[in-house]
């Protein structure tokens, strides 16, 4: 046997054996996350940065750390256009993909969240609606499969009122002041109303609720009323095109913009840029910082964008909604990591990841390790509390970028939580759920 035939033989053996060896451990160390995104349609200006931030962080985890404890993250985007029926179709299409099925789902729309909540318990896929969705689902005893930390619409509204009081110089000073809530006339927009009404009773400010019908291009009548009322503060719960119109209208009537506060879906770059100079001073609530001044952004540039693997344009990094996508992805990854402490460093199923969400304890040192110190607030989730009732920061638009202008403002948990628990009973019973005994979990 000549050397040449030996070589060819060895090569042939390797060629045959190679795929066979691969087939032995066929299950790759991968976990699948379905992404319901909206990069087209009327809400695309908001949807694109969120999706980019999310995907970029996942890419970062894969590129920098080689996945979560060695398990690579895989994902597939599905376009929903923010429509509920398309969202349901996407979810049904993607929930079974990957070696262990969908690890979790981020619906990215309150409407789609409502569709997925009943399915979550049946399909065993945890729903992570970060700061949106059904507020009542924050009671983990009734909604074990749904998570909406770091904080909810109701808590946010209470923090906004607390911030207004702070600016006025104390809670007492709020008495007799006029506050207007302009909201998107949908279940999402109305979320804050009960909390605001309750606080208006307790603190004695005059509350006016002004609804704007979807999509919200037409707000002349609303702002005529605002002029008549001449409020001290305006709180805005808008979405999509409604926000830009509201900001423009406010600037148009010369309302002091630093007394105009948007909720966290009404204060992103796309909302203020169309109003130009007039938007200067407009404020917004947020649970994470804007900008690119954190170590995680340096990593994103180094490991993702410099390698040409970015999901969007480099300039988009650091936009408010981009950063929200990053936070969302980070919390998802940390939940998976928490789940691995119990179930081992292997691809996990949705049910196993649910445990990780419920036992997530994101501490300040951990945030620092992640390069997110000061970027967002620590979160602790428990069986009863899927919200965490995290505090809220306020940011202000200076005409070019958003700047943080407040400390972390704590929410009024004593006001919100009892109402939330009552709502959870009501919503849970609608789905024929029963209350879980948290003492028995662990």
């Amino acid at each position, binding site marked *: 046997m000549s050397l040449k035939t030996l070589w060819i033989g060895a090569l042939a053996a390797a060629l045959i054996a190679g795929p066979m060896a691969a087939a032995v451990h066929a299950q790759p160390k991968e976990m699948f996350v379905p992404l319901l995104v909206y*990069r087209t349609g009327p809400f695309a200006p908001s949807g694109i940065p969120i999706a980019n931030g999310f995907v970029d962080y996942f890419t970062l985890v894969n590129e920098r750390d080689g996945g979560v404890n060695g398990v690579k993250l895989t994902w597939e985007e599905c376009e929903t256009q923010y429509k509920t029926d398309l969202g349901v179709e996407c979810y049904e299409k993607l929930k079974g993909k990957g070696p262990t099925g969908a690890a979790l789902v981020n619906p990215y729309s309150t*409407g789609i969240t409502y569709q997925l909540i*009943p*399915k979550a318990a049946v399909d065993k896929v945890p729903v992570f609606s970060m700061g949106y969705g059904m507020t009542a689902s924050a009671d983990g005893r009734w909604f074990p499969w749904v998570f909406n930390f770091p904080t909810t619409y109701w808590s946010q509204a209470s923090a906004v009122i607390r911030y207004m009081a702070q600016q006025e110089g104390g809670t007492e000073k709020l008495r007799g002041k006029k506050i207007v809530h302009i909201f998107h*006339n*949908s279940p999402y927009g*109305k979320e804050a109303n009960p909390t605001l009404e309750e606080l208006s009773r307790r603190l004695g400010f005059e509350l006016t609720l002004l609804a704007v019908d979807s999509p919200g291009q037409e707000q002349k009548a609303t702002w005529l009323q605002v002029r008549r009322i001449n409020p001290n503060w305006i709180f805005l719960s808008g979405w999509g095109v409604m926000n830009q119109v509201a900001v423009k209208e406010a600037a148009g009537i010369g309302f002091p913009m630093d007394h105009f506060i948007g909720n966290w879906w009404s204060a992103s770059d796309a909302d203020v840029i169309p109003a130009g100079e007039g938007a200067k001073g407009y404020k917004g609530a947020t649970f994470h910082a804007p900008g690119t001044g954190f170590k995680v952004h340096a990593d994103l540039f180094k490991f993702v964008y410099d390698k040409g693997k970015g999901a969007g344009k480099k300039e988009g990094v650091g936009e408010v909604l981009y950063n929200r996508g990053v936070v969302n992805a980070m919390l998802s990854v940390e939940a998976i990591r928490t789940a691995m402490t119990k179930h081992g460093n292997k691809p996990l199923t949705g049910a196993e990841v649910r445990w990780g969400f419920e036992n997530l304890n994101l501490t300040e040192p951990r945030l620092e390790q992640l390069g997110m110190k000061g970027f967002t607030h620590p979160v602790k989730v428990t069986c009863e509390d899927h919200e965490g009732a995290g505090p809220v920061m306020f940011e202000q638009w200076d005409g070019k970028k958003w700047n943080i202008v407040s400390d972390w403002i704590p929410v009024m948990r004593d006001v919100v939580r009892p109402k939330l628990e009552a709502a959870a009973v009501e919503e849970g019973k609608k789905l*024929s759920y029963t209350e879980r005994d948290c003492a028995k979990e662990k």
Partner: protein
Amino acid sequence: MIYREAGQFKTSYASDQAIFPIAQDRWFVGLATLAAFVVPPLAASEYWLQAVLIPLLIYSLAAIGLNLLTGYAGQLSLGTGGFMAVGAYAAFKLTTAFPSLNIIAVFVLSGLVAAGVGLVFGIPSLRIKGFYLAVATLAAQFFLVWLFNKVPWFVNYASSGTITAPNRTVFGVIVTGPNATAPVRYVTALALVVVFALLAKNLVRGRVGRSWMAIRDRDIAAEIIGVRPLRTKLLAFGISSFYCGVAGAELVFLYFGSAETFAFDITLSFLVLFMVIIGGLGSILGSFLGAAFIVLVPILLTNAPQSLGLHLPVALQKQLELMVFGGLIIFFLIVEPRGLARLWQIAKEKLRLWPFPH
């Protein structure tokens, strides 16, 4: 050769007036219906049942409803979404108020409620016609959706402002709610569609349907030969709204599981109208074909690049889908302005002569 009625003699009025006078048609439709009941629940994946076939059936029912009104009675309506919302909210109120009431009965009752509302909004049709009527029905669309959004009684004062389908059983099988399996929901939707399509087909072949068509083709002439416009038009509005109401209730109870008023906005009305126009005005079969076109083609287009091995960015894929879909709509409307049902009819006529055309 295979599709020919030669030798099939009609010996009674009943056989002459049958829905499908040709034996092959009867066999085909019968077998197709049977297959629809048996094959998908056994063979189709949950994705296909839940995300494709169930909405297809529900939209077909809504399209039949609108087709009765627009295609047969000639009354252009943009209120479909509103009437479907009436059905959905009525079903929710009824089933939460009377939990032991059979859910099928709830669907029918909520259809009746929608019919009542449809009658009221049909009254302007006595004075206004064509596009002007379309605008008047637009008022129904906006008013009804606004009403359900505004009055918390309709959602049982839920803080979320949404309606949710509770678990309900028929003969001990869970049909609605989160625990209902996709095959059960599918069979329920299919059974309802079959029954109501059969009813609609018979309706349009009989006196009522003929009076509708008389009104559609020339209302003054119809009045002269003794068709009463008031009764006929209102009947069309009532029955059409009944169908839309049942479809709306099914949309929430069998498909979405929970919904807010956003699900019933004007785009839904347009969607159903497009189904009717593309499928064929004045054709029950057309309602099915139109719904199939609108529901299936986008899904096929979305999944086509992937199954061909192309990995396009989702945004590009969606935009391509919209462009191709729009192009297809224009193509079909140019090739056959009378809809897909007409194409089907032409195909059947060709097949009758095949393989020896004149």
